[in-house]
C-alpha cells in the first residue's frame, strides 16, 4: 500500500505550482503587467483601461486555452497508453490528429474556405473541418475495433490511417499555392493565441465533458491494466471500454487540434511524467495528476514562448518539444525502464 499522505502532499504542491504558473502566464507578454494590476483587473471585471483589454481579450483566453490543451491531450494520452499498454500511444497514434490535419488541409488549401462568407464563419469552418477530419478517422478506427479482437492490431490500423491522411495532406501541399500553403504551415506550428471567447467556451465544454466521462472509467481502466482476460473475468466489458476510450480521446484530440493546431508532444509525455512522479499506475491518482501536470507544462511552455521583452511569439509546438522532450529523456534515463511503469 502506498502512503496516501505522500500523494496528497504532491497534489497540493502541484496545485500551488499551477496557480503560480497561471499568474505568471497572465503577467508576461509584449507588455509586462504587475501581479497587483492583474488581481485588480480580474476582480473589477472589464473596464476601458488598456490592461483590462489585454488581460480579458488576449491573455485570459490564451491562459485558459493553455490549460484546456494541457488537460485534454494528456488525458487522452493516458487513456490510450493504458488501453494499448504501449508507452508510445497517444492521440496521434490512432491517426486522430492526422485526420484533423486532413480536415484543416481540405479547408485551407482545397478551397473549403470559400464556402464561408463572414470571417466569424471562417474561424468556425476551420474547427468544423478539423473535427470532421478527426471524426472520420475515428469512425474508421471504431469500425475496425468492432471487427478485430486485439488491441495491438488496432494500434497498427491507427498508424496506417495516420499514414494515409498524412500522405493526402502532402499531396494537397504539393499542389497548393504558396499563400495557402503558408497558412496551413502556420496552423501546424500550433498556437494558443487568437482564441475568441466563443472558441474557448466550445473547447471548455468539450474538454470538461470528456474529463468527467473519463472519471467514470477509472475503475475498469485499472482492471484493464492487469490484462484484458482478467479484466473480463472481473466483469469489465472490454469492448465497451475500448469504444469509450477511443471516443473520448478522439473528441479531445480532434477539438484541441482544431483550435490550437497539432500540439504533438504533451499527450505522450505527461502520462509518463505523472507515473514517475506518483510512482503508481492507479488511474484515480493519474487522471488528476495528468490534469495538473499537463496544465502546468503548457503554461510554462506558453510563458517561454512569449520570449519576454520581444513582441514575437515562438510557435508553441516547437517550445513544448524543445523544452519538454529533454525532460522526458532525463526522467527515463533516471528510471531506466519505462515498461515498469505499466
Amino acid at each position, binding site marked *: *500500500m502506498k502512503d496516501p499522505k505522500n500523494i496528497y502532499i504532491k497534489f497540493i504542491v502541484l496545485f500551488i505550482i499551477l496557480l503560480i504558473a497561471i499568474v505568471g502566464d497572465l503577467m508576461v507578454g509584449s507588455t509586462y503587467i504587475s501581479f497587483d494590476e492583474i488581481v485588480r483587473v480580474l476582480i473589477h471585471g472589464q473596464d476601458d483601461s488598456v490592461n483590462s483589454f489585454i488581460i480579458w481579450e488576449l491573455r485570459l483566453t490564451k491562459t485558459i486555452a493553455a490549460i484546456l490543451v494541457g488537460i485534454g491531450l494528456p488525458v487522452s494520452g493516458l487513456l490510450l497508453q493504458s488501453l494499448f*499498454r504501449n508507452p508510445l500511444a497517444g492521440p496521434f497514434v490512432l491517426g486522430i490528429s492526422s485526420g484533423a490535419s486532413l480536415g484543416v488541409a481540405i479547408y485551407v488549401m482545397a478551397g473549403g474556405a470559400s464556402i464561408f462568407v463572414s470571417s466569424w464563419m471562417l474561424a468556425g469552418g476551420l474547427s468544423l473541418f478539423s473535427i470532421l477530419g478527426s471524426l472520420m478517422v475515428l469512425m474508421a478506427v471504431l469500425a475496425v475495433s468492432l471487427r478485430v479482437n486485439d488491441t495491438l492490431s488496432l494500434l497498427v490500423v491507427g498508424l496506417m490511417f495516420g499514414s494515409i491522411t498524412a500522405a493526402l495532406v502532402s499531396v494537397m501541399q504539393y499542389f497548393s499555392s504558396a499563400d495557402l500553403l503558408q497558412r496551413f504551415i502556420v496552423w501546424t506550428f500550433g498556437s494558443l493565441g487568437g482564441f475568441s471567447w466563443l472558441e474557448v467556451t466550445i473547447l471548455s465544454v468539450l474538454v470538461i465533458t470528456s474529463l468527467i466521462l473519463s*472519471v*467514470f472509467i*477509472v*475503475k475498469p481502466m*485499472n*482492471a484493464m*491494466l*492487469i*490484462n484484458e*482476460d*482478467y479484466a*473480463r*473475468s*472481473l*466483469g*469489465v*466489458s472490454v469492448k465497451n471500454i475500448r469504444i469509450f476510450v477511443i471516443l473520448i480521446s478522439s473528441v479531445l484530440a480532434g477539438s484541441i487540434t482544431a483550435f490550437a493546431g497539432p500540439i504533438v508532444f504533451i499527450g505522450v509525455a505527461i502520462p509518463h511524467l505523472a*507515473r514517475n512522479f506518483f*510512482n*503508481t*499506475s*492507479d488511474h*484515480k491518482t493519474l487522471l488528476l495528476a495528468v490534469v495538473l501536470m499537463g496544465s502546468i507544462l503548457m503554461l510554462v511552455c506558453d510563458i517561454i514562448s512569449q520570449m519576454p521583452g520581444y513582441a514575437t511569439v515562438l510557435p508553441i509546438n516547437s517550445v513544448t518539444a524543445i523544452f519538454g522532450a529533454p525532460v522526458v529523456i532525463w526522467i527515463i534515463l533516471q528510471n531506466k525502464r519505462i*515498461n*515498469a*511503469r*505499466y
Partner: protein
Amino acid sequence: MQDTNLHKNIDVLALSNLSIGYNTEDAIKIIASNLNTVLKSGQLVALLGENGSGKSTLIRTLCNLQSPLSGSISIMGKELSQKSAKSIAVVLTSPVYAPNFTVYDMVSAGRYPYTNWLGKLSDNDHDIIQNSIESVGVSELSNRLLHSLSDGEHQRMMIAKALAQKSDIIILDEPTAHLDLINRVEITKLLQKLAKEENKAILMATHELDLALQMADRLWLMSNGEIEEGAPEDLVISGILQKIFAKLSLDFDHLSGGFKIKTETTKSIYFKSTLETNEEIWTKRALHRVGYIVENNPNNPLKLKYIRSTKKWILSDNGVEAEYLNLDKLLDDI
C-alpha cells in the same frame, strides 16, 4: 460472507449439453460437444487431457472469456454472464502486465466486483484482502512489486486475488506450469485445503497426473471431444485412465499409481537380487533405462551381481568377468 454458508457437495456449476469451440466467419470448429457435468462445492477437480484436447477452450468458456457454441453453463441455477464475477474467480496463464502493481494492489483487484464506481476499498475490503494474502502464505510480500516475484509467489498471489473475490468457484488454468516440484506440490495442496476448509468448488486444468491422482477429489479427463469423469481411483480401476493415456509413451504402474515412461526393452540380463537394497533397486532401474529386461534365469549368458561387502558390481559375459566401482562405467561396457 456467502462462502462460509455454503455446504459441501452442492452443485455450484452445471454444464448442460455444452458445446465448445470456435465460431469463425467461414467455419465452426467444434472442440467438444454435449458436455454434461457438475462441479460441487468442497471439491478439488483436476481437468486432465493432452495438449490440444480442449482443456483451455473449456476453461475459457467456463470463465466467460469465450461464448459456448450451444448448451448452457449455470451457476447455482443462474446463467453464466458478465455479472458472474462474484461467483467465479479465475487464475489464468495469460501474462500479467502492470509491473508497477504491488502484490497488495493485485490482490485488491479481486474486490473489483464489490467496490463502488470509483473502486474505493472499504475497511472490510482491506480485511478480506489481508486475509486472502495470509491464507496463501505471502504476507511478507505484500508490498513487493510484481516483477520481483518468483513464479511460485506469483501463482500464490493470483490465488489470493481469486480468494479476495469471495466466489464459490475458482477456476485455474494450469496453475502449476513453470513451477518446480516443491511449488507444484505446495500449490496443489493449498488448493486442496481451500476446497476442504472453505468449501470452494475448485477446477484446475493441469498436466500433473501424479499430483491429480493423489490430491484431486475428482478427475475430468478430456479426450476426443468428451469428458470422462469420476474419482481418480475409479477411473484407474475401470481402465479409462489407462486407455486415454495409452497413446502416449507412458505405462501405468498400478503399484505406485504413477506412469512410467515406456522404453524399448530388447535384451535380457540375469541379475540376482534377493535383498531389495537401495543399490539393487537402482541397479534395476539403470538396466531398465538402457533397455535390459531383468530376468530370473541363471542360464542367461549375461549375468550381473552386486557384492555388498566390497561395493562392487561383477559383470559376467559368457564367463568373462569384469569388476565395476560404479554403474556409469558398467552401463558403458554392457
